């Protein structure tokens, strides 16, 4: 056995059955289907939260849960972090083959303005839309910078992610 065993949820929070703890992972499961980009996941078309126990590698925890609940990811990458939900929330974008998650609810992903903070301060509020937008912009950068991501993503993804590039990098 390695690492630290998962800690039980606190009794004080028991009634809520809510993911808590000092480090939580927020998994944004995204697919590209015939109608465009969509958010999905085992908890519906919503961000999926998991606990990351002390001493465990968040990437390892997230990869294990994604494989156990959804199947093999096309791409899995951490894209941002923030303080929220009583701890530090690490956001991961996981790209899945639409066929692998065909039975799960989907919601179309629209564009959103990013949550902006000051030059040295975090945004006062970060909603799901801006987090998804940031994740896809991060993926748009990765697909041009990281050969592993570029190779893993199908051609359709390359095309749709051009819409998430900052202006200076767009083809005009």
């Amino acid at each position, binding site marked *: 056995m390695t690492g630290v065993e*998962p800690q039980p949820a606190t*009794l004080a929070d028991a009634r809520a059955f809510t993911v808590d703890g000092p480090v939580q992972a927020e998994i944004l499961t995204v697919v590209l289907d015939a109608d465009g980009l969509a958010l999905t996941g085992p*908890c519906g078309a919503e961000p999926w*939260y998991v*606990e990351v126990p002390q001493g465990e590698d968040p990437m390892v925890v997230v990869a294990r849960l994604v494989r156990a609940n959804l199947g093999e990811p096309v791409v899995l990458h951490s894209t941002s972090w923030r303080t929220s939900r009583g701890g530090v929330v690490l956001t991961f974008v996981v790209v899945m083959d639409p066929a692998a998650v065909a039975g799960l609810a989907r919601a179309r992903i629209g564009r959103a303005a990013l949550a902006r903070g000051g030059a040295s301060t975090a945004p006062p509020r970060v909603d799901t839309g801006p987090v998804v937008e940031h994740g896809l912009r991060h993926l748009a950068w990765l697909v041009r910078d990281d050969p592993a991501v570029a190779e893993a993503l199908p051609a359709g993804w390359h095309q749709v992610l051009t819409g998430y590039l900052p202006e200076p990098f767009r083809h005009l």
Partner: protein
Amino acid sequence: MTKVVRCDCGWRVEAEEEELVAAVQEHGRTVHNMETTREQALAMAEPA
């Protein structure tokens, strides 16, 4: 007595005590990486 537990993620189970505890523990472990004791599972339960 049948009881119900609802997870924040939308998952819901309605069952007798033993089955309910097992389902809550399984959901917490497999979907959210959470370990839930029997006492915690029952504390979350409400009459169906």
